[in-house]
């Protein structure tokens, strides 16, 4: 039995419109059916790019955002259905370390007050003296001096503030700590200090971590199991080493190939899979496989049927219809993965010449002198390349519509697609405050 089990967790934010009556005009599908298990004493790393729902999922576990559907089973209890009052008691055992160490510490409270607040709320320690003793002990563990007690957050450096954030979680003696981007606000030299600290604490206190981060290298360094999220759902889950040795989902492959490695020898040799476009809006996610709009191997089936996370052996789970075929190299690329598709370059020189010697030439004259289109005709150069490759019309059309999504295109569903982001962020901001 795992310590923390998520089953089909969904967090949807309603998009409201109207002045007098708040009509719900759509949803942002921030987290859309995530199931995962975190074993006691282990570290589960959740990676993904911004907007993939990893932070919302972490907050959902603690019920800092309302879960729309699904179960969060912690130590045999479904947190999603607990009344608020009981949930509060459970929060002692599930603590969180936030990304922005300055933003998550009250600037007007000294460290003793910050750290003892939670203890008092949960009835830990008889009186302030006893709490202070406990706090001193924890401060020593996280590597802060005892004289920190009477100081204020602004007096500390970024790394020290993050240590305070960790201490705040530790004083409540939690079982699980959810670390939301614990090191992304820190400089690399300090980052390593905090990563080492988290590892030492896990060893000495038997903690269980759910680490949420965008930095694949950091996550790989500290996690036992890694889950890769894309647009609200897990696309791949595997033990850390297995994931690094053989990523199976096209998105994971692309993500790993994009992470820069501080070694020129490696950088020069490796092949990059460059993805086209941006993350589609979670308010209007593509049908079928969420990734098919950017996937270099996308097939007809991908636009229609959403793949489920299936075990392919040794605890390696992947949500892709064609993972096996891609691995065997049986599948042709349907989109280019190189720089050629991203930049259209041939036209540069001739275009420059054209503009200089005769200003607005009619576009019709252009194709005669240069193969690449320009001006208004050139509008679709890059997408045309992408769409040209797939064999069938259906796929091309799908790719086209998806392209529009990927650009955050406010064409048809314009207002709907635009509205949710401020809404969601406002919500987040509200919660944080």
């Amino acid at each position: 039995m795992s310590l923390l089990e998520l089953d089909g967790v969904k967090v949807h934010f309603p998009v409201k419109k109207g002045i007098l009556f708040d009509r719900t005009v759509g949803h942002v599908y921030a987290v859309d059916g995530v199931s995962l298990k975190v074993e006691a004493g282990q570290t589960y790393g959740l990676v993904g790019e911004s907007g993939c729902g990893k932070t919302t999922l972490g907050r959902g576990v603690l019920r800092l955002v309302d879960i729309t559907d699904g179960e969060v089973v912690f130590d045999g209890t479904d947190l999603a259905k607990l009344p608020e009052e009981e949930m509060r008691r459970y929060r002692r055992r599930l603590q969180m370390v936030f990304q922005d160490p300055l933003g998550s510490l009250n600037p007007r409270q000294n460290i003793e007050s910050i750290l003892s607040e939670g203890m008092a709320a949960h009835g830990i320690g008889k009186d302030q003296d006893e709490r202070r003793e406990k706090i001193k002990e924890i401060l020593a563990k996280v590597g802060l001096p005892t004289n920190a007690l009477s100081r204020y957050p602004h007096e500390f450096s970024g790394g020290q503030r993050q240590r305070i954030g960790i201490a705040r979680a530790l004083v409540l003696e939690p079982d699980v700590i959810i670390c939301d981007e614990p090191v992304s606000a820190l400089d690399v030299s300090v980052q390593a200090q905090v990563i080492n600290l988290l590892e030492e604490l896990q060893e000495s206190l038997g903690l269980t971590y759910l680490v949420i981060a965008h930095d694949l290298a950091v996550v790989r360094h500290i996690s036992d199991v890694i889950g890769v999220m894309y647009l609200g759902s897990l696309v791949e889950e595997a033990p850390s080493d297995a994931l690094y040795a053989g990523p199976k989902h096209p998105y994971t492959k692309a993500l790993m190939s994009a992470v820069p490695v501080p070694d020129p020898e490696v950088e020069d040799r490796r092949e990059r899979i460059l993805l086209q476009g941006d993350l589609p809006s979670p308010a209007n996610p593509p049908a079928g496989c969420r990734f098919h709009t950017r996937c270099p191997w996308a097939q007809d089936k991908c636009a229609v049927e959403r793949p489920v996370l299936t075990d392919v052996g040794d605890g390696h789970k992947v949500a892709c219809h064609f993972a096996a075929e891609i691995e065997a190299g049986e599948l042709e690329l349907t989109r280019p993965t190189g720089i050629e598709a991203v930049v259209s370059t041939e036209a540069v020189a001739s275009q420059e010449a054209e503009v200089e010697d005769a200003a607005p030439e009619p576009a019709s004259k252009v194709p005669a002198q240069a193969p690449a289109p320009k001006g208004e005709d050139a509008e679709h150069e890059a997408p045309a390349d992408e769409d040209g490759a797939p064999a069938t019309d259906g796929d091309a059309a799908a790719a086209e519509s998806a392209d529009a999504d990927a650009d955050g295109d406010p064409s048809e569903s314009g207002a709907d697609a635009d509205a949710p982001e401020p809404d969601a962020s406002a919500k987040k901001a509200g919660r944080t405050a």
Partner: protein
Amino acid sequence: MALLSVEELSVTFTAKGRKDATAVDGVSFDVDQGQVVGLVGESGCGKSVTSLALMGLLPNKGVKIGGRAVFDGQDLLSMSPRKLRDMRGSKLAMIFQDPLSSLNPVVPIGVQVTEILERHRGLKGEAARKEAAHLLDRVGIPDPSRRLKEYPHQLSGGMRQRALIAMAVACAPRLLIADEPTTALDVTIQAQILELLKELVDQEGTALLMITHDLGVVAGICDQVNVLYAGRAVESAGRRELFAHPTHPYAHGLLGSIPRLDAPRGEPLSPIRGSINDRIAWADGCAFAPRCDRYTMECLTGTPELTEPRAAGHQVRCVNPVLPKSKAEVSA
């Protein structure tokens, strides 16, 4: 002769009733035609201030700038503001870190791009608009004619950075300064942008001064790397040399503290202790000494000079550099 040659650049911020803050404390480096030079360091090392000083974007009041920065035979630091305005955007262009705050939010992208074309290339009306569409197309923005009419908030982060790059390369500048161009972006988008920059450098022979904190990015794109600490270059070498043999204890420590995707799991990182706040003035000794494991009393006797203890062209500012064992014993 180098395209840009910076000698002993220093920038000091002064304010009434406060101690002077020296952000850049004697930085020297060269950028050759078609070369990609990296300035790497953590926050507070003076890398961004260096770029702002070169572009003449620091305020006049409360800032003391020293040294020389000779670009194409002229000193940028002593140039008249009018002349510098002509240079900026045409011969010398900059890409900023945060594309949203460096684009004007209430002006459509198209107007912002054509503005440069009008100012520096004298294009007008339809010609300028066409060229702007072409520029956007060139940096990989699909459907450029429509995008020209849109406002910055309608574009995604990666797209905004592309628009900014389009503006920077609009006049085919000889030197491009990129200040953390990919820091605000996701890795997959970062990879796209880095490829685009590489492509531009290869094709146009533009020199690129890349300012970043990410050693991974540096390893992929830079020819020559300068590692900055507390406002001074502490190590400078070709990228292969630097990453293979980091010799200054800071550069060495920095590489040891980065979790690497391709490293075997379970090895603890070896961080540098303390933080950038624990430093002494360069005038008194090595600013890194309080965080350094190798420091001796010698480190506290004045600014260490740049030496080449390992290989020609590999400059290190340290009296106790990290050298292969045998050599270290000999010198000890």
